[in-house]
């Protein structure tokens, strides 16, 4: 079984700073890490491939520094790592990104399953995985919490929904996005790291994957960010220190006033 896991480099959550003027994330200079939710996709893929003597290919699109997260995927046990990097990809939205990744997957060739994380912790859109499935025209199941059976080309999975769980049967090849519940990610090992040090990371650009230049980068991205606003905290707080009888009465009266105001508008 050949499984492809698209992963993403994200800013470390503790290091994220917002630009107060544009309201966007300042990515440059902040420490980067593998999207924590992608670890569950990698773990799921590694478990499946261990069971079926298969292989796992990790794929990412990003600047050259994104090689770091591919090394981590290799240390965990992935057998192949591909970095899609080209200035032409810069500024891609989820539409252009999923297009580029789908072209890279076509270039990889045959696969049985694509597994993605639920979403990336920076953009939070959860659109790229489904986008890839659409471009490749394969079955898609999101929010998978368990893989129950795989018999021949048929897979039965459980999907987490707001109401509970949904049992879904799908035919491979397919793309699934997984939630945290599905597995506990392993830690990378020294053995894995040494293997990773000896495994070259394949670098591909737009030409390698035969991407239509009009569909990638800022030009290929239909999304336009018109305005970004941070919600203002409208509520105000009053603090009444009630250390003796007198001040306690005042504070309680004020509290009653506030409750009445809220009730009667």
């Amino acid at each position, binding site marked *: 079984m050949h499984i492809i896991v698209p992963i993403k480099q994200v800013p*470390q959550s*503790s290091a994220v700073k917002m630009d107060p003027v544009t309201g966007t994330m300042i990515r440059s200079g902040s*420490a980067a*890490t*593998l999207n*924590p939710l992608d*670890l569950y996709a990698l773990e799921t893929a590694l478990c499946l491939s261990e069971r079926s003597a298969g292989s796992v290919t990790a794929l990412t699109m990003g600047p050259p520094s994104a090689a*770091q997260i591919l090394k*981590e995927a290799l*240390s965990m046990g992935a057998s192949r790592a591909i970095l899609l990097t080209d200035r032409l990809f810069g500024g891609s939205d989820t539409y252009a990104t999923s297009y580029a990744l789908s072209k890279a997957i076509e270039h990889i060739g045959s696969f049985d399953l694509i597994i993605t994380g639920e979403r990336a912790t920076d953009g939070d859109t959860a659109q790229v995985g489904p986008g890839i499935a659409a471009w490749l025209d394969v079955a898609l199941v999101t929010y998978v919490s368990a893989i129950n059976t795989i018999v021949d080309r048929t897979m039965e999975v459980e999907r987490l929904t707001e109401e509970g769980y949904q049992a879904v049967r799908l035919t491979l090849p397919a793309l699934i996005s997984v939630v945290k519940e599905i597995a*506990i990610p392993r*830690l*990378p*090992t*020294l*053995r894995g*790291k*040494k293997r990773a040090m000896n495994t070259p990371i394949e670098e591909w650009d737009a030409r390698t994957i035969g991407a239509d230049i009009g569909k990638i980068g800022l030009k290929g991205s239909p999304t336009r960010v018109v305005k970004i606003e941070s919600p203002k905290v409208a509520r105000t707080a009053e603090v009444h*220190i009630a*250390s003796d009888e007198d001040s306690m009465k005042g504070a309680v009266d004020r509290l009653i006033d506030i409750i009445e105001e809220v009730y009667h508008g």
Partner: protein
Amino acid sequence: MTPYTPITAAIIEELITICSASNVLTERDRIEGYSHDETSKEQYSVMPDVVVTPTSTEQVAQIMRLADRHTIPVTPRGAGSGLSGGAIPLFGGIVISLEKMNRIIEIDEANLTVTAEAGIVTNELNEHLKDTGLFFAGYPMSLESCFLGGNIAENAGGGKAIKYGVTSRYVLGMTVVTPQGQIVHLGGKVTKDVSSYDLKQLYIGSEGTLGIICEATIKLIGIPKVASTLLVPFQSAQQAIAVVPLLMKQGIIPVSIEFMDRLSFEISCSYLNETLPLSGVGAMLLLEVDGSDAAQVEADLVAVGELCEEMGAMEVYIAEDANNRERIWAVRRAIAEAIKVYSPVQSLEDVVVPITSIPQVLPFLKELSDRYGLQIPCYGHAGDGNLHATIIKDPEWTMEKWLEIEPKILRDLYAFIVGKLGGKISGEHGIGLKRREFVKELTPDAEYELLKTLKRAFDPKNIMNPGKILI
């Protein structure tokens, strides 16, 4: 009968005059929190008569002058995260909590120093410094709660001491209020100073018995750009510990070599709901390497990992990114808290031995555990020879039985550590209330008399955190 004057309404009035009514607490439910620290509350807890939260060094000095005039015992308090009962007001009286003195006074990037008040949370200090690329490398495990002043008063160690040393390495200067209420400034921004007796070093680790540290000037160093963590399971604790002296000879100075026996690791994992592979594991080492050159750190990581493999490691897990590193460190940091939840009555020990003697400590702990029929999970800073063996009260035992047996176990343990191995009874948690009897027993008379003479010279009325360290 104590030699101390009881707190009267008139004294409360004077305290209010000094630091205003909102900084003087007397209501029982508000001062209860100041009656204990992180030692077992069931065993060590004394209510203060009044808690004051001054907002300046001058106010602290005025309170001390008042206490000196009336002979009132004063107990200084940081975050209350101490592990030896140092902040417990044994004779009641006044607790001075430094919690409102948490300002940064000056960041001097050119001289690589920061001057701050004693009540700042150590972690917040480093958060403030982050943008300068500098940090205070004193690193107690309770970094999210403990105060700078407490770090200094206890000379806190922690998980990075092998490479970065303990708190005392970084204290360049301090402002102290003496038991008589005088404000003295010791040291400064200089890195060398033999201009007199080194009073500053004397105050470091004095546990509030010689005066109150109100401000400190701390030496800063550059934040290492890269750090990697290893988690290494071994089949036996002996195997794991045997790696430590060998590692130290490698020429690589790791930031941390932390030891966790199976029981501590298991309790912490279950507390955190963490699942790390445990099958057949007898003990774990947590190691960290850091530096400014990624390639060098990677080479160190591989070298340390390979040595562990040669020494029989079952696996070498590595964490090179922040998320995985935090996942591993969380387990180590949560042990004390997790054991506390597991059994609130316990004796968290802090013995320290020369590093080559570490392998001898564990079989002895096993022997003690068998002899008394109690569990003794053990973890700690193996690279410093500093182990936190934690003697846990059997839930079936009555408190009376525990109180009878606990000193016996400790006496056996300390006799072995000090007598046989040339170790000490506390590496970083201090003596406080918890170990003072043992200090008296284990310190030669001439030395103990010197300690008492010193204390008398500083505090003739014995009002400054009385009853701590010495009896």
